[in-house]
């Protein structure tokens, strides 16, 4: 972290000031679906869903599964697409000055193995009661992903 935290700016069509970047976020509930996995970002200290960007040479499901493993140590499988989130009225500005309009594919995943642990990118990784997670100051947009999945709607959200 070099001083400036990752910021999210808002404004009409502000996304056009950045590069388009495709990312993913993963929703993992524990067995009883009472708790949800969150990680704490090292760049700005906020809690968020695990996720990241895709590498060339992998499918989106593989990319999401890799990111969750790298950030939390848990092996997961993608279950379904919850939604695509592409609000053009927001711009993410990273500590290195890069500006991006992020398109996020949010997936629900299930655990198939591994042990919960920390990585370079995360300073925390733990399950929180869903109601508590929704009251936390989550990284921008992530509360919306969680609220959408809680609707139980099978139809994919297009946002």
């Amino acid at each position: 972290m070099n001083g400036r935290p990752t910021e999210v700016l808002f404004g009409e069509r502000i996304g056009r000031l950045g590069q388009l970047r495709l990312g993913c976020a993963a929703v993992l509930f524990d067995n009883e679906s009472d708790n949800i996995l969150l990680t704490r970002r090292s760049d700005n200290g906020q809690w968020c869903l695990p996720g990241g960007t895709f590498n060339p040479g992998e499918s989106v499901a593989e990319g999401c599964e890799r990111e969750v493993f790298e950030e939390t140590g848990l092996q997961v499988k993608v279950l379904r697409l919850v939604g695509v989130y592409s609000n053009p009225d927001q711009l993410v500005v990273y500590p290195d000055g890069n500006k991006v309009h992020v398109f996020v594919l949010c997936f629900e995943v299930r655990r198939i193995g591994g042990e919960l642990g920390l990585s370079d990118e995360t300073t925390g990784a733990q399950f929180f009661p869903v109601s508590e997670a929704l009251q936390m100051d989550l990284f921008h947009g992530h509360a919306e992903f969680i609220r959408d999945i809680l609707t139980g709607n099978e139809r994919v959200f297009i946002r």
Partner: protein
Amino acid sequence: MTQIFYGERLGRNGKIRLGCSAVIFSEDREKVLLTQRLDNGQWCLPSGGAEAGESAAEACEREVREETGLKVRVERLVGVYSDPNYLIEYEDGNRVQVVAINFEASILGGEIGLSNETTAINYFPLHEISRMELTLNHKQRILDTLTGQTEAFIR
């Protein structure tokens, strides 16, 4: 000419590019709208890259408008297509692995007309499409749309 290569994990030689495509049915739902690409002569769904400053739905609606003249509205997301074994090389040398979001869209207005990216536009009956060679995995995208499945295909 745009070239498409297929081989194990070839996508790793490119950059990820986000695209979108639209499946637009005729009124009787027996035909699907296809466009013929200027760059390689293949038939395909109306499709193209998304741009910063627009939403995924807006990108799809804009591409359809630019390529066909039709004003459409995205109705549902059919699937995400990200086969890492495809590598697309454009005339300018850029190489990409496409991650495409395929939508079903309905027509709101406009008139079908050619653009500078397309050399022909036509509705094709499904039985004819099954015998045609469409670009990339566009035939799969149409088949997935026809299932009517609510959950998205993740490919």
